[in-house]
């Protein structure tokens, strides 16, 4: 069994800014992986480009630091080709909800069994703090010359609309909660979106550690971030996926919560439903599909001799 230390890569120095929320996310992922009892070589950690994109380099596992906005398709390809791997996709909010938004929406439709963890710092960190798609209209971080001219996307609501079957949020500096969410998202059979509130002390002075968790909100006397699982009346889980009414109600409930942002910011699991995964659907189509029977399994040649039998197909085409 691999320990947290086994998942720490030492050949490269971590070059995030001191105090960056990314550290919390990195630790949580490493802790979750250790908890999940998976071997490092069976993990494929995929990322986009950005500060967040550097994450795989700090984890001792197969790490793929792809292109800006392209983490989802690349990770999807690996998971489809080898469903036995623990494939995890991570990336920035600009990466995922901006340049990658098309993949983000369409990955929901596939319901591939894979978690996607978004480092949501409301800025483009690595390019020096421009507004990312989650920064609200009119907000001005210290890195911006003018207040933000765009409205923000709501990642939770968008994920719900796009069909993610597990939708959650956590907070980079609540490492225990975050680890739990990473595990849940990973264990969930289907497409999981985990949006992580991630302070960027270098560029985002509006929504920092202080804002999220340290100073209390005057009106409530409580920290802003609260946990859905501690709410009595909140149950994200669809008991009966075939019950349209329940599905709609649970989705609507999640949608409503997703709009909450201000004095109280919910974290936790907003929505969860068990539906056939893309892998299961593929199995239906192909007859056989799974870790033992997938593209990465090298059963298609015998010491250099192709083993594919296309005789029938040729026969169909034979005219004389």
């Amino acid at each position: 069994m691999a320990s947290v230390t086994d998942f720490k890569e030492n050949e490269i120095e971590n070059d995030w800014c001191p105090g960056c929320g990314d550290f919390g996310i990195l630790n949580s992922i490493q802790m979750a992986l250790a908890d999940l009892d998976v071997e490092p070589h069976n993990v494929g950690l995929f990322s986009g480009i950005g500060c967040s994109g550097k994450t795989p380099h700090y984890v001792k596992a197969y790490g793929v630091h792809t292109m800006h906005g392209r983490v989802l398709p690349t990770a999807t390809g690996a998971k489809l080709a080898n469903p036995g791997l623990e494939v995890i996709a991570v990336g920035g909010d600009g990466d995922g909800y901006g340049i990658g938004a098309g993949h983000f929406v369409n990955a929901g439709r596939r319901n591939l069994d894979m978690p996607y963890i978004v480092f949501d710092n409301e800025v483009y960190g690595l390019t020096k703090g421009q507004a990312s798609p989650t920064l609200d209209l009119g907000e001005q971080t210290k890195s911006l010359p003018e207040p933000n001219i765009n409205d923000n996307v709501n990642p939770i609501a968008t994920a719900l609309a796009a069909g993610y079957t597990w939708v959650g949020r956590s907070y980079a500096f609540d490492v225990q909660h975050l680890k739990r969410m990473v595990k849940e998202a990973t264990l969930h059979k289907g497409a999981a979106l985990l949006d992580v509130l991630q302070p960027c002390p270098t560029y985002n002075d509006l929504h920092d550690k202080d804002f999220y968790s340290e100073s209390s909100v005057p009106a409530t006397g409580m920290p802003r971030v609260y946990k859905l699982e501690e709410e009595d009346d909140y149950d994200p889980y669809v008991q009966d996926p075939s019950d349209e009414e329940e599905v709609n109600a649970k989705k609507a409930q999640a949608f409503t919560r997703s709009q909450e942002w201000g004095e109280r910011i919910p974290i936790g699991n907003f929505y969860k439903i068990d539906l056939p995964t893309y892998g299961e659907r593929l199995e239906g189509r192909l007859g056989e599909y799974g870790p033992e029977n997938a593209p990465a399994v090298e059963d298609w040649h015998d010491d250099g001799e192709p083993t594919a039998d296309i005789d029938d197909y040729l026969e169909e085409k034979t005219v004389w």
Partner: protein
Amino acid sequence: MVGGPQGSGVDSAAQLFAQTVSRGGLNVWGQREYYSNIKGKHSYTKIRMSEDEIHSPVDRVHFLATYESETLARHVQDHRALVGGGGVLYDPSHTDETIADIRFMDHRVKADIAEEYGQPADEITIQQLLDDAAADGVRLFAFPYEELQKDIADELGMDDHNRLQILKNTMATAASIAMIEFGLEHLNETIDAIFGDKSDRIVEMNKVAAEHSAQYMRDNYEPFEHTIAPAEPDEERLFMQGTDAVALGKMVAGCRMQTYYPISPATDESVYLESKPGSDVVVVQTEDELSAVDMAIGAALTGARAATSTSGPGVNLMVEGLGFAGLCEVPLVLVDYQRGGPSTGMPTRTEQGDLQFALSLGNGEYPRLVLAPGDLDEMFHDTIDAFNLAERYQTPVLMLPDKDLAGNNHTVETFDVDEAEIDRGKLFDEDELAETEWRDDADRHPRFDTTEDGISPRSVIGQEGGIHWLTSDEHTEIGHITEDVVKREEIMEKRMEKIETAREEIPDDRMVRRVGPENAEVTFVTWGTPKGAVLDAMEVANEDGDLVNLVQIRVLSPFPNHVIDDVLDEATNAVSLENNYTSQLARLVREQLGRGFDHRAVKYNGRPIMQNEVLDIVDDVRKDAPDRIVLRGGI
């Protein structure tokens, strides 16, 4: 040739005819032309057939069958479409339609006809055109579809002959078959094959329609001058289109993951693979081409053989992924079925316009291989090669067929599957890797080890002991980001060296195919599809002498420098021949060798290069041709 509105079934007629004659033992070459449209616009298929091998279309046909006016207006009037002494099968019920009545025909064509006749378009009738053609020696075969349908309905015991519209295609085919005296036997066989799994009634309807139509022709017309008999050859022949050949090649090559986003003319390949779940190929329709290429890359990183297929506009969106694959040394196979460009261009027309793009797409520099198959057999075998080369040189391989090769049905000698071999290149096996102690950084397997030939042994995601990183940034041997000057130089040199290794390793006769007499007067140097027209032209031209030979460059990157240098040294008249505007191959040759061609023949109107056009070039070159020869044939 058969022509008619897209979606009206002309396609089925063409299929029926082509299958019939191929089942009758003939070699067949199809050329299907159609608009980017679902229903209504003009579409036609030319079918060449012969006991001998054929490899290209010609401009004029001997027999033309249709049931509507646009085909007649375009192909009869034109004089380009029919040989003198040819015949036209047509529906006499609407020959009083005028040119102006023809809904979808291009204004340009209408205007040209009007000018030729010196009359307004709304005064020129189809009948006029037919009469004119007859005066030129074309035989007219009026074929009263509706009346015949009534007879057929009677025989089938049906009240409403209108429900038999759908039989028009079989009727036209049967009438044509009757005229060329091929016999109905193979047509009935084909009807069984095509409709057999639908219902017996449908088979019966078609057979009755065929018999009636043939009988009508026999009863009403003198025998046609151009006939052809079935043959009984020994060898096996396949009948298929290019996308099928690639799909079959992928199956044999062990490709188990195919991603695609629908686009003409590439879609057919993926649809074919999808229709064969037994082949175990996971086919994924993605949200766009950015995703298609990246998914294939992700799959390739796990050791799977993965590929994607598209056409030019899709390649535009794959540039990013290809660069990543080049930098990270990912074996990736991309088939670009070229079509008329630029941009969306002419989606259903042919072109070879993407060569220079393929050679330099992506910011910065990385090695890539570019293959250009020129016929169905090469489509099949190049596909298998593509995967071997991709893994051997750990870099993207692009295959560049075109719409013409992709979407037309031809007969081809059955593929020699036994010839196929799998070469996975330098791939670590589990045992070797298991000895690596991954917990100890110093004892790790350096994925991008700097070797002499530029190729590093490779592990894939999931292999114990092979842990490494991949990044779109420049990287160290283990795959971590670096910006160090020395590491950058080392890794860049290692990466670029691979293309030199490939140039040395790939045999000359794999890179270049030479056909024909050594000291010909005219040497055609080409890539891809146009080679067929040269082969066919050679048959004719070399009847009385060593006039023409062919140099087909099958690997464009790495470029076979010394082979082509020799070719140009030896050639009396070197003519480049390609389906694009700027003679992209000729540009490449000059970039590589610093030397040019005597003539550059180009064609860029979206239609394939035809045998007769090549023969014209031969004539012209022997007299006095310009440096740049533009071919303008086609409808």
